[in-house]
């Protein structure tokens, strides 16, 4: 599927898929990133309005909130859904968990440190979620321009995770061997082609 040949209907399909899968509301600026070609905010808003009316009369509706657009259940359908596994606790998004992991393992850290490790911006909202929970707090400021706050985990965090100290967190020292850190596909199986550079090549390289 080529983003540059999108017709308006496909723009709507992509927007719908993105909004249905996002855990957070998506701002128009975020939605623009979905497409290669430049889409004006006006075009996007028009398609969003269309999408909203497409969902009229369904159990789920598209709404605009302060931070963007999102789908949610229509209040009149809540009662039905509440009959499903009512005891199931909600879960944090991966963004929240990653931020929490970085603060736990690398404390004290600034928001900039977290962004560097995650490779994406960390929203104020996200930090606030963890602060509101009482799991992180500010323990100081780094003396660089802007004096960014240094975050650390609190005792409440340890208590809630049933830990006596940070030492009891799972050690990370050998996790590296469990993931494909190079981001490469696994080495092709030996039956098709040899897995490794033949020793001869190494020798030749060494002898050269």
């Amino acid at each position, binding site marked *: 599927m080529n983003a540059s040949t999108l017709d308006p209907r496909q723009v709507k399909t992509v927007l719908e898929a993105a909004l249905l899968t996002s855990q957070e509301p998506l701002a128009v600026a975020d939605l623009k990133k979905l497409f290669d070609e430049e889409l004006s905010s006006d075009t996007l808003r028009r398609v969003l309005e269309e999408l909203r009316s497409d969902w009229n009369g369904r159990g789920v509706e598209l709404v605009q909130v302060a931070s963007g657009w999102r789908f949610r259940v229509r209040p009149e359908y*809540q009662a039905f859904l509440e009959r499903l596994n009512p005891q199931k606790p909600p879960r944090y998004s991966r963004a929240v968990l990653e931020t929490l992991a970085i603060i*736990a393992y690398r404390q004290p850290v600034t928001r900039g440190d977290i962004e560097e490790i995650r490779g994406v911006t960390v929203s104020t909202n996200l930090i606030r979620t963890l602060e509101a929970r009482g799991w992180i707090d500010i323990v100081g400021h780094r003396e660089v321009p802007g004096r960014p706050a240094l975050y*650390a*985990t609190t005792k409440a965090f340890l208590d809630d995770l049933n830990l006596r100290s940070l030492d009891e967190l799972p050690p990370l020292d050998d*996790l*590296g061997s469990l993931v494909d850190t190079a*981001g490469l596909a696994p080495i092709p199986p030996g039956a098709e082609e040899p897995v*490794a550079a033949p020793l001869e090549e190494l020798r030749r390289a060494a002898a050269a």
Partner: protein
Amino acid sequence: MVSETAAAAPVARVYGEPVHEIPHDLYIPPDALEIFLEQFEGPLDLLLYLIRKENINVLDIPMAALTVQYLEYVEIMRAGALELAAEYLLMAALLIEIKSRMLLPRPAVAGLEEDPRAELVRRLLEYERMKLAAHRLNEVPQAGRDFSLVCVLFERDIGGQMPEVGTDDLRMAWMTLLTRAAVNRHHRITREELSVREHMSRILRRLQEARYVEFKELFDPGKGIAILVVTFLALLELAREGLVQLTQQPAYAPIYVKLKTSHLTTVQ
């Protein structure tokens, strides 16, 4: 360039042919060797590589040649002072054993069951099957990795129930970060390092309350020597990261620890 020709020559292609030894003076860069050997998941993987590379019939493995070649690799690993897993040596012993049993006379109607190589062949094939299966399994699209799941907000009234987080969630989150390779592979976090970081947070919290604290007040001898050492390391790390300042006027006077402030920095 003797090694050039020696290296290019086929190694152990024919039954019973002598296998070229690696010249003793040949230098293989340890890094290259390590990367090369790291690609093997163990002795079975290495053996399979040798067999497939030489196009050997799995059902009729030339034990002498294969053993020599296998030992050659093990020898390089040892010479390279690489940490050699015991499994590699165990396999070497097994290969030698099979090789010697091949020399013994066998019953006239020798089926594969009586073949000393049968068990090795069975293991090699089973491992290869699983290795291929692993590769294929990894190609099956995975939720979250290759396709997203739908997740529409449902503001359920659950009495303000907060999301639960377990240590496994944090571990998983970290593995995700590792995969994105944004985290430097050499930045390994050990338990020891973690408790240092915990004490760094503790000292910073303490310094928030009091502008400065006397060095020795940060240490609590009652907590044991390990905590003293960790606290000291935490202080050094804080100083290194420029988060605190350690000052002492004359020699032997009390040492003070204070938060590093921009004001002080400019005065200096």
